[in-house]
């Protein structure tokens, strides 16, 4: 067995899920192979960090909804999903992360169902950007008028550009253009 094969077994080795025979083989290998030993240490550290994460508090209905959703999947797909998810589900350290990810997915789904994303065009562009563009175009036009103050118009444009860059838009509050 080569290192690639051993590395596939290392997560189960860290979780104590291997048979005695395989466990002994993997243990012997990671003690003698520097790279696999480091890989095993990394897996162990990750599991520790995940274990220390705060547990997401799901609602009372979360488990029920998750079970219902799984029940809706055809049986064949369910088996495949179960097999592929088996490692994650069996891994106690991964459950909080899995719960948080599922909660985020459900929340995001509800949010985007409520606020559908529309096609991006100028109409969806932030009003602030469009309005600032119009104000600057207005000022540039006014600056080319007789009786106008070109220096003041330009200074006002400079201030607007600085404000927009700092995400604190300052529209001409005094009505001066």
């Amino acid at each position, binding site marked *: 067995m080569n290192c690639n094969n051993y590395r596939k077994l290392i997560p189960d080795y860290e979780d104590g899920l291997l048979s005695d025979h395989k466990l002994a083989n993997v243990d012997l290998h990671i003690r003698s192979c520097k790279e696999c030993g480091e890989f095993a240490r990394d897996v162990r550290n990750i599991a520790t960090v995940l274990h220390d994460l705060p547990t997401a508090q799901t609602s009372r209905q979360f488990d029920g909804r998750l079970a219902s959703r799984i029940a809706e999947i055809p049986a064949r797909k369910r088996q495949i999903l179960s097999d592929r998810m088996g490692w994650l589900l069996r891994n106690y350290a991964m459950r909080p992360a899995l719960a948080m990810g599922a909660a985020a997915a459900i929340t995001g789904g509800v949010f985007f169902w409520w606020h559908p994303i529309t096609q991006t065009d100028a109409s969806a562009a932030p009003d602030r950007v*469009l309005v600032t563009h119009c*104000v600057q175009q207005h000022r540039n036009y006014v600056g080319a008028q*007789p*009786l106008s*103050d070109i220096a003041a118009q330009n200074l006002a444009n400079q201030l607007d550009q600085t404000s927009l860059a700092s995400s604190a838009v300052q529209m001409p509050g005094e*009505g001066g253009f």
Partner: protein
Amino acid sequence: MLRNPSGRRNSYAASALILALTVAALPPTAAIGGPRVAIHAKAKVKRVAIPSQPSARLARPPAAVQDNYARTLLRQMLQAEQHVVLQGSQTTVLNRNGRSVTSEQQVLRNGSHAFRLEYTQPARLAGQLIIDNGRAFWHYSPASKRLEVGPSRVRRLRDRVPQVMRQIKQGVLAARYIGRDTVAGRPCAVVEISSGDLAKAPSRRFWIDVANGAQLRIDEFGDRGQLISSSYYTTVTYNPTIPKDAFKPPATPKDTHLASPPMSGPSLTVAQAQAQAGFAIQQPTYLPAGFQFQTASVSDFQKQKLVALRYANGLNVLSLFETKTGARADAPPRLLRPRRGVFVLAQSGLRLILVGNLIQSEMEKVVISVR
């Protein structure tokens, strides 16, 4: 030494002489409110506080002064702007949201043919250069390595002078002689111009050099009489020697980013703009007194067509921008006012943005009249 064309020299000198004699004949008035500047033309003047309200020491216009005289002064100022060549240090103060921002710049003007402005203060603007040679406009910012290039503004300004002079002559704008003052050591006549009742409409004051009609200071007031901005020369030299490359495009590093400033497109009629934009343009059915349609244009903004309709009375400009939205045409209209001077109306599948500096009630009347 740059001289005026011989054909205009005599008439120009005559106008200046008449202007000077007329001002000298006027009864003396009380001091004009505002900053006092050094008499010595070359003295560097530090920033002075600009009063937030017109000075209480302003003289009432003498009974003998006619509005026609103020209009004459303004017309002569506009004529002088076409010919006067000057170089000077200029200070600009901008009041916004209760705070003042000040800049200092070196200005070189060759009549209405070319213009150069270089910022020296504040530090973040220092080195910025604006050049207009009558054909193109460049604005270079070394700090951001950005160069904006666009059509000439002095040319557009020159093209609009006759219209403004007609509007002044016709009395569309109210002009009032305020009195006399000194700017950069030069005796000036002060004229105030507005588009209506001073208490309700934006206005401007011009300090006009009595010797040649050059504009040496301009103050802009809002609809509530608040001082919005003030630009005044602290030093001025007439007919300076202009360096050969004064109005050439600025030299920039290779990694300078080239950009176009937010500018409207070429002047069009409404029908032409509608054809280019590809959607039915809406227009206001109400305009404040004196305002006329000036021009339409179409530009691109984020791959969408942006129509701009301009209405002006010679002093103030209203810009109505229109762009299509994804909203249904039968959706109820929505009116928003993000800040003073800007109204946003969503109706008939369009987003309409009205920009101007008139009083709020007039702006509202205009925007809700758009059909």
